[in-house]
């Protein structure tokens, strides 16, 4: 029974299902197998009755048509350190200044940290303890720390395919961040001018704060998303948000294409919101001079909870 459930979990992770979905499906199967055992079925009989878990995971996935996003070539980087993972999940805590960073998945079983650039790497702190990966830029001189060598430094972190990221905490000043082909249960992002790019991922509960970094999300699932910007833009394509989607922006534009969510709450001063094939169940819109427009081909019911604008236009329809 344990083996079947473990196999199933791995297969569900491969299909990039959200952590919540995986837990539900596993709980349902635990219950069904327990009942089968109580009825006196042998392990072999149960195997035959339940069938192949990989097929089950495929049937359950709505991601199956999507290919993994193109990965970064590790050849362009120097391997810095690698760590053995002895759990099904890890946490990541990253604190950077201006170094760009990519998070992606790997077929291998170790967490790997690569870098590229000429800056002195030994000034950086890197550790992996109790399944938590920590990477920090030198803090000695605080915010005004400057390098003699102006070369850019870029990091690449690889996480094994069958390992989930429990929590990803990313704090940076102007680092650009890219994330692809990973499952994250909880994600917090805090940057000033760093951009964020996500492709083909499952991000669970996400909370972002950027000042003027731009955000681009493709082929990704969320449980909920709370994003706040000052003048960074957001663009999303083929995104499913199981729960609520909150956006707070001063002058950043929001572009949404093929996006679904429960409750969409947007608060904008002068940023425009443009939705195409955007299907929230409910919307609460507030803008000062920003225009809000949602254009959908399909005539699905959208409940308007709140609609308020001083001088901007709000339009929901075809």
């Amino acid at each position, binding site marked *: 029974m344990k083996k079947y459930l473990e196999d199933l979990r791995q297969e569900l992770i491969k299909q990039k299902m959200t952590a919540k979905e995986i837990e539900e499906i596993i709980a349902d199967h635990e219950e*069904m197998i327990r*009942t*089968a055992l109580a009825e006196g079925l042998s392990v072999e009989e149960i195997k035959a009755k339940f069938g*192949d878990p990989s097929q089950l995971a495929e049937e359950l996935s709505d991601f199956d048509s999507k290919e993994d996003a193109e990965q970064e070539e590790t050849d362009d980087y120097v391997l810095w350190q690698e760590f053995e993972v002895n759990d099904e999940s890890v946490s990541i805590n990253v604190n950077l200044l201006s170094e760009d960073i990519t998070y992606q998945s790997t077929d291998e079983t170790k967490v790997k940290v690569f870098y590229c650039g000429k800056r002195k790497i030994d000034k950086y702190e890197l550790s992996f303890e109790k399944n938590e990966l920590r990477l920090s830029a030198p803090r000695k001189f605080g915010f005004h720390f400057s390098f003699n060598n102006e070369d850019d430094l870029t990091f690449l972190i690889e996480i094994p395919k069958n390992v989930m990221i429990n929590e990803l905490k990313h704090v940076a000043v102007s680092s650009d961040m890219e994330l692809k082909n990973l499952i994250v249960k909880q994600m917090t992002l805090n940057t000033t001018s760093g951009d964020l790019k996500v492709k083909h991922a499952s991000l669970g509960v996400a909370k972002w704060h950027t000042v003027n970094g731009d955000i681009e999300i493709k082929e990704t699932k969320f449980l909920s998303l709370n994003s706040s910007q000052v003048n960074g833009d957001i663009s999303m394509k083929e995104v499913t948000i199981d729960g609520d989607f909150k956006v707070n922006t001063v002058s950043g534009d929001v572009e949404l294409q093929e996006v679904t969510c429960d409750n969409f709450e947007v608060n904008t001063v002068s940023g425009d919101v443009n939705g195409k094939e955007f299907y929230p169940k409910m919307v609460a819109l507030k803008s000062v001079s920003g225009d809000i427009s949602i254009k959908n081909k399909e005539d699905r019911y959208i409940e308007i909870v709140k609609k308020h604008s001083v001088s901007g236009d709000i339009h929901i329809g075809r």
Partner: protein
Amino acid sequence: MNAQFKRGIIELCVLSVLVEKDMYGYLIINKLSDFIDVNENTIYPILRRLTKEDYFETYLEESNEGAPRKYYKMTEKGFIFYLQLREEWDSFIGGVYQIINQGGKKNEEIFRRFKTRINQTKDDS
């Protein structure tokens, strides 16, 4: 059998057993696999999808094994969907039977007639 086609039929079967009464997952699987060759890995995704589409609701109820079980209950929306699907199926399968039984119901008779026809074609050529 064509996977898409089979899925549609099993969907109807799942709806048919839940129209009778609320059931837990394993019982639904047993009800179906008693009659047709089908695995859990086909039935469970259907249960989950129909629940997501609000055709079923779920609730937990204590069982005598200790841990509670998840029961599936058909909603009104599910019932309307079932009636629709059932009607489509009845008219479709009715038509299919008419076509396949056109030549009479006995296999032996059909085989005998086919044999004569085949032999005739051979003689002709």
